[in-house]
C-alpha cells in the first residue's frame, strides 16, 4: 500500500481529484454537517472534504474520507471506476486465509505532543453537533481499543471497534457499547471485578484500520492482523502511554483513559445510521488521563443521517464479506452476500440450491451468525446467477420466483438491533425470510417456466462499448 497514515491517504485522494479543501472559515453548526451531506450527494465520485478553518478552533477537520465507491476503490488500491461487485471479490481475495502479524514501532508522529494535565479535548479537536437534536458533540469514527481483562495477553481478544462517543466534558466521554459488541464483553468482565477498563481511542487513521474496526469479526480475531492481510504487509503498531494497549502508529490523535466501572450517566440522543435519532440512555463514562497527537492534528469524523451517508460505505462490503465467509464455511454453494443496507438490516444472499428449501436454510444460518443474529431482519435469498448488488436483478427474482404463501416465512421474538426504531422492545424483533430462488426438487417445479439464457459474450461487448465511449 502506498499510504501509512491518514495524511498519506489524503494526498492520494487529492492526486486523484477526490479531496476538496474548504479554505473559507466555517461555523461548527450547521456548516460541517451540511457540507458533508452535500458531498455524499455527489454519488460514485463523492470527494472527501478538508475543512482548513473551523471558527473558534485551532485544528483542521476532514469528513467523507470513505464516502464514495471511488474513495473505497482507492483505499483498496483499485481504479476509481471499479464496480461494487468487483470490489467485493477483490476484498474476498485478500480476506485472510492466513493473517499477517503486526510489528511494533518505538516511536511515531502520534507521540509528538503529549498532554497529561489540564486536558481540554476542545483544544485538540474541532468538535461540533452533527444533527440538530444530538445530545452534544460526538466522536463517530474513532478506533476504540480495549483488552479482555481475564486474558490480557491474548492479542486476538484485544478489540478494535468503532462505537459512538459523546463528549461530556473537557476530559470526559460517554460511550455506547451495545451488549453484543466485543467491548461490552470486556466491560462486563471488568465490572464483575469492579475494576476500570483501560481504553485507547485512535482518531484520524489510515483508512484500512478504520474499515476493519467497523467489521464484525469473531471475538478472538484481531482487527490488526486482518488489516495487515488487506494491506499485504504487517500492520504498524505502537504502545499506548498509560496502558498495555496497542494503537495504530499512523493515528493523528490517541486519547487514553478508563471506562469507569459500574457507573452510567445520560448519553444521547444521536442521529444514527438508521436515519433516526436513538433514544437517550444511561451509558458508561470514560475519564481521559492522557492525549498524544501529531503536531497540527487532523480530526476525522463522520456525518450520519438517512442512508446513504459515509458510514454506509464504511460498513457495506466488510459486513457483507464477513457474513459471506461465515455462511460459506458450512454452505459452500453461497455465491455472494449483499449486507449493505442499514448495516445489514436487509441482506441479500445469492446461492446455488443443493435441495428444495435450501434458500431458507441459508437464511436461517445467516440468522445465527454473530452479526446476522441481531442486525439482519429481512433476508432475501436469490439464485447464484443473480447479482445481489444489482437491485434490478434482485427485484426480478422477487417478482418472478416468490409465491408468498410458500416462500415467505416470519420468525417471531428474535434478537434485534436496539437502534432499529421498529424493534419492540428495543433489542428484539421478528425476522422475515424471502426465498426467491428457483425451486429445485423435491420442491415441485413448474414445467412450463424456463428462464431466458444469458447471452455468452455480453461482457466482452461491454468492454468494447466502454472503450468506444472513452474515445
Amino acid at each position, binding site marked *: 500500500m502506498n499510504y501509512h497514515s491518514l495524511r498519506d491517504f489524503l494526498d492520494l485522494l487529492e492526486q486523484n481529484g477526490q479531496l476538496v479543501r474548504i479554505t473559507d472559515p466555517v461555523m461548527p*453548526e450547521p456548516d460541517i454537517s451540511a457540507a458533508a451531506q452535500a458531498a455524499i450527494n455527489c454519488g460514485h465520485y463523492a470527494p472527501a472534504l478538508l475543512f482548513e478553518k473551523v*471558527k*473558534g478552533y485551532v485544528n483542521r477537520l476532514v469528513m467523507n474520507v470513505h464516502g464514495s465507491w471511488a474513495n473505497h476503490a482507492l483505499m483498496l488500491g483499485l481504479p476509481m471506476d471499479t464496480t461494487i461487485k468487483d470490489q467485493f471479490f477483490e476484498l474476498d481475495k485478500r480476506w485472510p486465509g492466513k493473517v499477517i502479524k503486526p510489528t511494533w514501532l518505538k516511536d511515531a508522529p502520534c507521540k509528538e505532543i503529549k498532554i497529561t494535565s489540564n486536558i*481540554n479535548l476542545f483544544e485538540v479537536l474541532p468538535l461540533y453537533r452533527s444533527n*440538530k437534536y444530538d445530545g*452534544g458533540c460526538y466522536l463517530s469514527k474513532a478506533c476504540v481499543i480495549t483488552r479482555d481483562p481475564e486474558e490480557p495477553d491474548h492479542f486476538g481478544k484485544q478489540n478494535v471497534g468503532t462505537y459512538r462517543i459523546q463528549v461530556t466534558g473537557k476530559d470526559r466521554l460517554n460511550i455506547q457499547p451495545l451488549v453484543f459488541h466485543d467491548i461490552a464483553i470486556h466491560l462486563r468482565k471488568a465490572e464483575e471485578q469492579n475494576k476500570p477498563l483501560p481504553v485507547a481511542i485512535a482518531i484520524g487513521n489510515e483508512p484500512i484500520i478504520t474499515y476493519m474496526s467497523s467489521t464484525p469479526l469473531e471475538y478472538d480475531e484481531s482487527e490488526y492482523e486482518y488489516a495487515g492481510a488487506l494491506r499485504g504487509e504487517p500492520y504498524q503498531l505502537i504502545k499506548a502511554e498509560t496502558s498495555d494497549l496497542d494503537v495504530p502508529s499512523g493515528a493523528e490523535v490517541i486519547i487514553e483513559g478508563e471506562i469507569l466501572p459500574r457507573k452510567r450517566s*445520560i448519553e444521547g*440522543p444521536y442521529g444514527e445510521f438508521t436515519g433516526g435519532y436513538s433514544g437517550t440512555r444511561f451509558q458508561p463514562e470514560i475519564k481521559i488521563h492522557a492525549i498524544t497527537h501529531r503536531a497540527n492534528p487532523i480530526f476525522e469524523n463522520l456525518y450520519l443521517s438517512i442512508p446513504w451517508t459515509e458510514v454506509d460505505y464504511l460498513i457495506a462490503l466488510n459486513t457483507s464479506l464477513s457474513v459471506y465467509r461465515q455462511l460459506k464455511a458450512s454452505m459452500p454453494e453461497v455465491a455472494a452476500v449483499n449486507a449493505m443496507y442499514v448495516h445489514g438490516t436487509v441482506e441479500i444472499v445469492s446461492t446455488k440450491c443443493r435441495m428444495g428449501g435450501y434458500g431458507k436454510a441459508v437464511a436461517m444460518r445467516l440468522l445465527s451468525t454473530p452479526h446476522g443474529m441481531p442486525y439482519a431482519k429481512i433476508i432475501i435469498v436469490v439464485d447464484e446467477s443473480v447479482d445481489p448488488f444489482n437491485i434490478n436483478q434482485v427485484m426480478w427474482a422477487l417478482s418472478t420466483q416468490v409465491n408468498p404463501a410458500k416462500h415467505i416465512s416470519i420468525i417471531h421474538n428474535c434478537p434485534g438491533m436496539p437502534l432499529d426504531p421498529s424493534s419492540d422492545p*428495543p433489542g428484539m424483533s421478528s425476522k422475515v425470510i424471502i426465498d426467491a430462488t428457483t425451486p429445485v426438487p423435491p420442491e415441485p417445479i413448474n414445467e412450463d417456466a424456463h428462464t431466458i439464457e444469458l447471452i455468452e459474450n455480453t461482457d466482452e461487448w461491454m468492454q468494447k462499448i466502454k472503450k468506444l465511449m472513452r474515445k
Partner: protein
Amino acid sequence: MICPRCDSKNANLLIPSPVGNEWEMYICNECNFTWRSTEPENIRNPKMYDSKFKLTKEKISKMMVNPPIATSRKQALNKRGRFFQNNLWKEGG
C-alpha cells in the same frame, strides 16, 4: 443558567472557544446536554426546545441502562454462599 433540554438549573460554561472569542459552549451537569452560544434559539432557549426531545424527571427515571451493569463477583459469590448455606438447593429454590 438553565438547561434548554431538561430545565435543570445545574448548568454552566464548559469552555470559551479555544481561539478568537467566537463562541462559548455550555453543559448541563444533570443530563450532559451541551450547546453553543451560536446555535439557533430553538436549541438555546428552554422554552423553544422541541418538546419531543425535552427530558423530564419521569423520562429520566424510565431510561434504559446500557449495557446492564454486571453483578460483581463478590455479590455473585455471596448469593451462591447463601444458596448453599440455607439448603435452598434441596428445596429447588
